[in-house]
């Protein structure tokens, strides 16, 4: 491998790692938005879910590029086995292993989502919870091994990504009432609800959702 092509690979590894961080942040925030039922007005909820799915696939492409260029680059001794099995790398085994573990989790989440129609919902959901493990592990991998992490812009970028996910997560678990504001077909005043012409609007955010929780008990998890 010549010096030039090796440096191209190295720059690609670094760049694709940074792009992956940004995309994973978008995936996390998008996933939290899907679960908390953001949308329903100008942007429909199924569109939020669809954007979340598609960005996650794009993120996987960048992560695979990040891994592939690392393996192909002869400057660092990371073999193809290390892409899937942690602690097998000659180069910084523990720090590379963090990336491997995060990738394994993301692979499991992606595969179970692709075959979601054929597996049980609870299995899909359980594995999907691993996102909250995969993202921080990936960020720790970046902080410990990232060549660019010594620069202020990269530290700021990382801080921004972590805060974005942290805020979304805090909002999901503490601030946002469950279930989120329902899409409701407003019944006309004269006809009974089932025969009414459905006008899809958003229910008021806070008040009715609490009432709904008590008036119509449903399994929520």
């Amino acid at each position, binding site marked *: 491998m010549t010096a030039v092509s090796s440096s191209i690979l190295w720059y690609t590894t670094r760049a694709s790692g940074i792009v992956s961080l940004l995309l994973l942040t978008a995936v996390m925030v998008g996933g939290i938005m899907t679960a908390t039922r953001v949308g329903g007005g100008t942007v*429909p*909820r199924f569109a939020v879910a669809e954007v979340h799915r598609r960005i996650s696939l794009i993120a996987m492409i960048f992560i695979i590029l990040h891994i592939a260029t690392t393996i192909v680059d002869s400057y660092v001794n990371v073999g193809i086995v290390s892409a899937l099995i942690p602690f097998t790398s000659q180069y910084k085994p523990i720090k590379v292993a963090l990336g491997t573990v995060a990738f394994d989790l993301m692979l499991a989440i992606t595969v179970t989502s692709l075959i979601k129609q054929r597996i049980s*919902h609870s299995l899909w959901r359980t594995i999907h919870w691993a996102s909250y493990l995969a993202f921080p592990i990936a960020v720790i991998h970046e902080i410990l091994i990232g060549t660019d992490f010594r620069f202020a812009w990269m530290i700021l970028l990382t801080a921004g990504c972590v805060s974005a996910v942290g805020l979304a997560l805090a909002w999901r678990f503490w601030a946002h009432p469950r279930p989120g504001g*329902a899409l*409701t077909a*407003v019944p006309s005043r004269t006809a009974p609800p*089932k025969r009414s012409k459905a006008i899809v609007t958003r229910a008021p955010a806070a008040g009715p959702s609490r009432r709904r929780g008590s008036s*119509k008990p449903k399994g*929520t998890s």
Partner: protein
Amino acid sequence: MAVKLELRIDPVACDGYGHCAEVAPELFSLDEWGYPILRSGQVPTALVAVAKLAVKQCPRKALSLATAVDPPARRR
């Protein structure tokens, strides 16, 4: 005539996300709590593709398409 299909809602799995009514307003309306109500028992041939999309988009896998049983229109 093609096989007649009808949509089925699993009321236990459904959690009122409302994606179905967004994807296929021709097939679903929502009650005041945001849970879907089928507009008709059978899926019109022209809407089969939309119905399949709605089934796929359901975040809770609460929708399914099945061969319609006779008499075709089962209404509550």
